[in-house]
């Protein structure tokens, strides 16, 4: 293995699952594998362009791959469909907390694609506004504005859906965890 291959493998190991999680959240598990594969193929081809840290750049590449192949409407459908399979995180001993999380996830599905994207990058990928701005190709200041608006709309959507229908009761924690394994196997 030469230097380039070693460095590339290290980048893959540190970022692969994040790229996959981003693609999965954006477009569903079905095509996340494809997007990851294509993203790293591009990354290797453009090896000389990969900056430090590589993650925002990789997510930007994945974003382009997604955008080229999958329309926003299809992405919303994918998110909604995926939602049915996703496993809420364990913990959340208080029933209200769990209910709240479910409500937030459902509200995510109702948001405009652009809002959902900003929220995924910041809340789920844990990117700073500067990093998220790099992924989206905008200025950090513009990102903050987008995040502010997305957050406002998310709050509204959560409140709106809470008003429309009571959230279904989540199953007991044990049941939820056993689902992790089943779903996890399907997805890999």
């Amino acid at each position, binding site marked *: 293995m030469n230097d380039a291959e070693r460095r590339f493998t290290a980048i893959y190991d540190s970022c692969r699952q994040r790229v996959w999680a981003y693609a999965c959240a954006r477009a569903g598990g079905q095509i996340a594998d494809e997007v990851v594969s294509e993203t*790293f193929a591009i990354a290797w081809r453009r090896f000389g362009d990969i900056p430090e840290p590589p993650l925002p750049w990789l997510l930007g590449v994945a974003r382009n791959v997604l955008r080229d192949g999958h329309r926003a409407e299809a992405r919303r459908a994918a998110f909604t469909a995926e939602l049915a399979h996703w496993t809420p995180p364990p913990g959340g001993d208080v029933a209200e907390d769990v209910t709240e999380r479910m409500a*937030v996830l459902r509200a995510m599905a109702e948001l405009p694609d652009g809002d959902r994207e900003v929220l995924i990058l910041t809340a789920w990928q844990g990117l700073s506004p500067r990093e998220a701005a790099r992924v989206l190709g905008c200025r950090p200041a513009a990102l903050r504005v987008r995040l502010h608006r997305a957050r406002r709309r998310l709050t509204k959507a959560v409140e709106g859906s809470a008003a429309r229908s009571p959230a279904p009761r989540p199953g007991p924690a044990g049941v939820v965890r056993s689902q992790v394994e089943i779903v996890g196997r399907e997805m890999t």
Partner: protein
Amino acid sequence: MSRDVLRVLTEARPVELDPEIRVDEATRTAELARAMAGTRDAHRERARRVRPVWVLGLAGATAAAALVATVVVPDDPAAPRSPAPVALDARTVLLAAADRTAATPEGTGAYWHSRTIHRNHFPVTEGGRRYTIEVTQATDSWTPARPKGKQWSRTQNLGFRPASAADRAAWQKAGSPTRVKVSVPISPKLKRLKSAVYEAAPGKAHVQASPLVDGDKVYWIGRNVTMKQVRSLPTTPATLRKELLRWYKGHGTESNSPMPRDRWLFEVGGLLVTDLPVTTKTRAAAFRLLADLPGVRSIGKVRDAEGRPGVAVAAIERTPNGVLQRRLVIDPARGAALASETIVLEPAGVNAELPPNSLLGSSTFTTTWTDKPLS
């Protein structure tokens, strides 16, 4: 809701999307293998250097599309513009150029100024008429002799014109359009096309100054190199060949398509004699290296696309897009390489609809040391 919505959202991240999950080994192996099975792309890496070099002018997106040389597509097929070829042995021509080059004093200056005129030929279908246009682009670059300077470039589209008298007639019958759309192959295998629009009128010149990559890298010759490294290339044919071949990976300089070693050396050697600020001793060695390559033959006396007289030497390259003839136009008396030209002898692939022996494109080179950029 009672708590901060972003915080709830963060906590609500489904388990599947946890970035700390490790990918299974089989997927990891397969994905890494698939990624690294591709070749690292010279185009892309070039984006970080200021100026493309491993390019015989027309390479890149439009590369194998279609070029035409004055010699090959005359206005009237019965009356070629250039004189009839005279039998001149390629080796003799190249060795004469080497001797002449070796006897030339080194130039001096703060910048290496290279002016290249690219001419590409594209088939057009418009208003039910088919014709070929010649698109011309001028590129000037000024590369600093010392580190820390800036590399300057000026590019300008010089517009298009019908490639021949017959093409002009068809173009006029199509209503003499001053904007035309052509299809340009983009993928390495050239199966995908994208369209490009060309104007008959010259465009504006774009001037750019960029700091050197890493402060001192000026060219890409299989890797980023400094001016000092370019100037220190070996000065005998054998050592030069050995040094160059370190960067040969079995494929072309601008694509992943396989390229035999000798064809690759012809292309890269051609670059050293046409375009790069190598020392006169290295350039002489490059001419001798070319002279020793098998399969290089003389085409005889020609004029380049700028009308300058020279002798063409050529190598044959078999590609998915046909059998191509790569020509270098040499001025043995000055020890200079004037131009490179590509002709499709047996069209195939994206060139399938062209007549045999069509000129796909040409690049003419004028180089000199100078003290001022943009002069």
